[in-house]
């Protein structure tokens, strides 16, 4: 965890096209994400939100333009280097083997240990002997415990993840990201399967991470209301391009949403927060 987060994402005309597809999933995206920002990526289905997030996480390499983290292109960074700073909560994970919740969360500590073994390797002249057989240390256990507590996962900490509900799984994935102590947190639809209480828990925790530890949070969500409540800046995507960037008030206007969502929603004000509210038309 970096106290004084200075990690900045910069995208210059970034674009990506999935192999074998004619159309671009993301196109001409130019965007700067400042350290400590809370930014939401929103848009209709297929607008490229998840793809854009994957470009940020380095999982996909841009075929157009550049994606930079602190001035260096993300694609030139090794995965373990990236993982020192960036944590990802993917949309869904298919668990095959019966790891316990605790074990999955503990995997979030691996990047730090990998970094240590990488420095070892340099010292040993780059021998690719081991890059992943290490035991957990005390600080690892502390971090894991804290993450479990934050996400209210302690009661099921020793259960197999194969037995969890969809919502519980999402919480586990977030706990794993939290244990990573990242400078930047990328979230892809992190609350899709959660009930109100757990959605609230998630958003409070992520917000605390941002406000107390200065972590940058990039959130992909199709839930416009939660994006409006949580993010300070919203990026509205349409067909892979940025349609609008601005504060929730600026972006979530009736005009914009009518155009994008075929006049199916009505925009008004949230009763207790200073944010727009979007509701489905009857």
């Amino acid at each position, binding site marked *: 965890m970096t106290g004084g987060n200075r990690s900045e994402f910069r995208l210059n005309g970034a674009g990506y096209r999935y192999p074998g597809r004619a159309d671009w999933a993301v196109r001409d995206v130019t965007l700067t994400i400042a350290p400590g920002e809370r930014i939401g990526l929103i848009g209709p289905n297929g607008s490229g939100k998840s793809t854009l997030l994957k470009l940020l*996480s380095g999982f996909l390499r841009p075929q157009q333009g550049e994606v930079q983290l602190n001035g260096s292109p993300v694609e030139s960074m090794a*995965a373990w280097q990236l993982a020192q700073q960036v944590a990802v909560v993917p949309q869904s994970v298919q668990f095959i083997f019966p790891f316990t919740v605790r074990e999955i969360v503990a995997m979030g500590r*691996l990047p730090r240990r990998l970094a240590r073994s990488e420095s070892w390797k340099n010292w040993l002249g780059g021998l690719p002997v081991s890059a992943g057989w290490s035991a957990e240390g005390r600080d690892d256990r502390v971090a894991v415990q804290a993450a479990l507590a934050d996400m209210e996962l302690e009661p099921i900490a020793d259960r197999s993840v194969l037995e969890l509900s969809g919502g519980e799984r999402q919480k586990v994935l977030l706990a794993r990201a939290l244990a*990573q102590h990242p400078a930047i947190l990328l979230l892809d639809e992190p609350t899709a399967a959660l009930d109100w209480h757990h959605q609230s828990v998630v958003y409070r925790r992520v917000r605390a991470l941002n406000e107390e530890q200065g972590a940058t949070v990039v959130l992909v969500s199709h839930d416009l209301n939660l994006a409006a409540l949580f993010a300070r800046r919203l990026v509205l995507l349409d067909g892979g391009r940025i349609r609008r960037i601005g504060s929730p008030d600026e972006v979530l206007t009736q005009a914009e949403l009518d155009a994008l969502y075929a006049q199916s929603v009505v925009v008004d004000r949230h009763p207790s927060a200073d944010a727009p509210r979007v509701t489905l038309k009857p």
Partner: protein
Amino acid sequence: MVTRRWAPARLLFLTVLLLGGSILAALSWGSVAISWRAMPTLFWQWVSGVPLSPPAMVLWEIRLPRILLAGLIGGVLAVVGASLQALLRNALADPYVLGVSSGAALGAVVGGLVSHSLHEASVTLFLCAFAGSLLTLVLLYRISSVHGLLPVQTLLLAGVVINAIFSALVLFAVALVEPSRLFGLLSWLMGSIGSADYRIVGLLFLYSLVGLILLLGRAEQLNLLTLGDESARSLGVEPERLKRLIFVVTALLTGAVVSLSGMIGFIGMMVPHALRLLIGPDHRLLLPASAVIGAAFLILADLLARSLLAPTELPVGVITALLGGPFFLYLLWQRRQGAITGD
């Protein structure tokens, strides 16, 4: 419900006990029983360079190298199986699912058609089989690589196809082989640890050591790989690089083992699978445990293969299948009783 797992200490104790016990049993039993009491004297005989008595000969020149070879092969197959189960994200994968073994079999049989000096322990057979496995490795890679990526589903499918085609070709070639050469070939195809000597054991050990270290040293990365490419990458593991490494290392190890001893089945799938149910899926424990238990398992299977119908020897592949199947059923049944949801 808390997942029940064996504590590492208990596991360590039991696996070492099992391996040690199986080695001792295999040394003592066989077509002729050699009592444990007699072993120290026989050991001194061997070390002191005196001409050996028949029991000493049997013990040190036949049984021990065979036990060592069986242990090595069993351990390698189990680790390979575990790694492939992680790579392919499938708990039923085994070292032969990708077809490398059928390639080795095809190489062996084609060699049998061409060469005259082909028998179970011949270098020619080994080289032909190994060449077959290498070619299959390349073929698999070519077929499955898509835009420089190695999608797991494609790999699996390619393996199934190759297995089918090559198995058919093997049968075709066997039909053409001269009956006088069939003995050696068929025995090899069914899996046998027949002619072991210290040189072979040593060579295989050195060869496998590299591969085993590469795999065991990446145990945690394997853990991550089972979560999917995206999760793995976000936690610092390059999935494509790791997949390629596992693919190549496991193929090379499988190729060597199969070229040496034919298709000894079931260990590669059953040992890691059963162990995972008992000690959990963390590869830091699973890989070493698989190595040790795989070794013990094949040592015992080979012991049975040469003692059940003594003095006749059965192919060890038959024994592994007969032992493995029912035991696995039993384990599954036990787990079903206590499981809430199926895995």
